[in-house]
């Protein structure tokens, strides 16, 4: 997970998207709250991710929906690094 990388992983039945932006790790829902499309192709910039499908934007820090067409937030998860492993609390 070098800076700029994103990875979608399924933990139990939950899609989680892990992003490394400027060496800050974020873990959020891998599914857009707008029309349940995958977020993995979204552009990450300035601690935000923009869904590639319809352009909904979310804060990676809080999960808040920042513009239409999304009005509902996405989940955010605690993330930590242990011995080179990225762990997410789902």
């Amino acid at each position: 997970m070098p800076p700029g990388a994103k990875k979608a992983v399924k933990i139990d039945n939950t899609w989680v998207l892990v992003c490394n932006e400027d060496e800050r790790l974020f873990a959020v829902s891998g599914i857009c709250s707008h029309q349940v499309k995958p977020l993995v192709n979204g552009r990450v910039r300035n601690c935000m991710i923009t869904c590639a499908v319809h352009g909904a934007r979310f804060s990676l820090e809080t999960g808040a929906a920042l513009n239409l067409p999304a009005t509902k937030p996405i989940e955010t998860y605690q993330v930590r690094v242990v011995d080179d492993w990225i762990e997410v609390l789902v």
Partner: protein
Amino acid sequence: MNVKVNQDPNAGLPKGAARYPNAPSTQEIIATDKVAAPGWVRSESYEFLGDEDVSSDRYTDAAFAQKEFDRLWTRTWQFACREEHIPEVGDYHVYDIGRYSFIVTRVAENEVRAYYNACLHRGTKLRASGTEGNTSEFKCSFHGWSWNLDGSQKELLCPWDFPHVDIAKNNLPQVRVELLGGFVFINMDPEAPALADYLGPAAMAHIEAWKLENRYIYCHVAKRLPANWKLSIAAFMEAYHVLDTHPQVSVTNADANSQYDVYGEHVNRFISPLGVLSPHHYGKYTEQDIMDQFTLGDSSALGDVERKLPEGGRARQAMADMFRNMFEKATNTDLSSVSDSELLDCFSYTLFPNIFLFPGISLPMVYRFRPDPRDHRWTLYEVLFLRPVPLDGKRPYPAEPVRLADDQSFTEAEGMDPGFGAILDQDTDNLILQQEGLEASAKRGLTLGNYQEIRIRHFERAVDQYVGGKA
């Protein structure tokens, strides 16, 4: 025999030729700098354009605003975004003017297009206003019709129900796009002149010399202003207001001896030298006072350094030397080829209809003014600060806009120098009084100075040409 000697150096000059008496000109001030200014600084292009009043209904009449939307905004070149907003293929940025909305997108490494931001099915915006991102298609969130980056239609749900739609021809309508200095300009008018012709050769030479494509947005602030967009623009077109509106900076600014120039129909400028005493204050302040009171648009590099003037030194030169050294170190940039004037002075250019470019280093702004389409008495104002890209070549992401509430001070905007924010507060606090005053006034026009307010006359002349149908 007694001979009466006329002491007025302006006596007998033609209209517009008078200047502040017994003060050096902007060119004379700049000529004394250690690191000499380039040609685009050391030139003059003033023109007298008449002295009749400018009608005030243009600021107060909603019907005039509608004419502007019909005839001006649809026919002029406008700054839609910076190239740095859309560096990768598939990046897009939504630009709105009035009711119009455009998706500006990079379709290939060296090709940017702009599409009307509306689905060709039932009209839904394909992307929300004020947004940007990256995509491989523009897909409508309503029924899923989608278009490729190149504007060709990609998908139409249930084509059996639309035998009357030819997908091969159902492309997203485009507007014209041109790139200049890192800015993406659009124009809705297919008959408009090319951007270089619109700006003219003199202004083009200036803009190309600045290399603004090598800068990035490090601060972006947006706020609504309670006045017509043209009043808001005019508030920044002259230094005549500095003495009364900005008393804290008038000491360090050659306000009354600033230089004003016009170029063709769409570009004008002033050069307002800094680090020298205003002629209004001659005899009242020392060079050390000027040094102490100097306000920079980007003062972060200076920090709290002691501003001690060398024995016999001049504040302007000392500030240039100090700012050059500290700014280079703080921002990892090379200013060795930049003149003292470019470092310090306020270069304010207007590109009609609605942007200002300030190509200096200490005052490195871009302003954009757009009318509120729902109320001609309100303006959306944005200020962007540009910095040179660091020497290591790694271009930072452009700053996200900080949106201030109507009652918030610019000094509260994260990333903006508080001293500069205070100046913007003073500028914009005048506007509501001016808007209301024009509506209350028995006089139906504005009276302008021949020299110091020539940019306003030049700007309003261009407005008249578009709205009146002469452009």
